[in-house]
């Protein structure tokens, strides 16, 4: 129990961060019209592609003779980039489609 409290104590900054970000996420999208549900989902999907930064860090930390880490990390970078690029391009295409239509209320 004490060890758990210690862990939380040393990471207090991150815990604050966590809680504030959760509340912010709820607040930011609470008034979204139904027509934007799918593009918003797609945009959020692209944003969590930020996990690719973690994949890059893994690769930068791996020692050059650790082939397992290099191969797995390489795969992680590819799929992470797929998530980011695919996510943003798909969202942009969706929103482009919205533009051409006459505006609905």
């Amino acid at each position, binding site marked *: 129990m004490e060890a758990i409290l210690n862990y939380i104590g040393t990471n207090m900054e991150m815990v604050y961060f966590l809680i504030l970000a959760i509340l912010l996420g709820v607040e930011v999208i609470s008034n979204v019209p139904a027509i934007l549900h799918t593009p918003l989902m797609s*945009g*959020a999907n692209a944003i969590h592609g930020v996990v690719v930064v973690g994949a890059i860090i893994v690769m930068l930390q791996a020692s050059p003779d650790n082939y397992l880490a290099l191969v797995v990390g390489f795969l992680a970078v590819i799929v992470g980039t797929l998530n980011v690029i*695919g996510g943003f391009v798909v969202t942009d295409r969706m929103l482009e489609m919205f533009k051409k239509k006459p505006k609905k209320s």
Partner: protein
Amino acid sequence: MISLNILEISYLIASLTFILGLKMLSHPDSARKGNLLAAAGMGIAVLATLVLYQDFDAGKGLNYGLIFLGLVIGTIIGTIMAKKVQMTAMPQMVSFFNGMGGACAALIAIIEFQHHQHAEITGFDGELLVMLLGLLIGSVSFSGSMIAYGKLEGKIKDKVLPMNQAVNMLLLLTVTGLIAYQMFAGSDPVLFYVLLGVALIYGILFVMPIGGADMPVVISLLNSFTGIAAAFGGFLYDNKAMLTGGILVGSAGTILTILMCKAMNRSLTNVLLGAFGGSTATSSKSG
């Protein structure tokens, strides 16, 4: 030291663009700009990590080469897939890319676990917990998203296994047990990979019984799962951009899931238990 500060500031800028981008995405007039803003922030975060991350030293040319190659391959395939897809096939495309993000989070957890094996830790191992949870959520999101993708593409038929809910409960108990055991008894490579396997199976069985019309809701839920998995990665590396991006998507995605359910006049439990998902599959598809 200066470069480290610039790196942190880049992550701050990226976090801000994610927040503003998400905000702009929820208004019809600014939605497209919001998407581009978040994309720009993402670009800054990736570039800054590549150039400024402290851990690099001489003799890592191979690592850099592989990173660049990975980025290029991912960019080319991602762009082609996203450009070619039919407008009607957008939801499954989102699901596919979401699964990729989940896979990325799970792969990161696997490598970090290898490193972690060499560390001597006594007492509560918070890092291990973060890793195990990242692996669990990332792989559930991956296999679940792939099933959702397959179902919407018509490659996988709706099929309800006998006792599906009971089996899911059992799997959920198993993963909880696997994580709890390792928290008490220390990390174990065999159990780690058992956890990976059970998580993948759980993801499949979780999405399998859910009807086609409810799929967007499930994709949105898996989307927020991946966000949480990304945030665990951020916790692991003390990386603020990953943490904000992940948590924002995690919480916004959860709210969005509930909003989508409301728009369809369904409750989330209803969708997840697949109570009448199959039967309404044809009638309620209005989008």
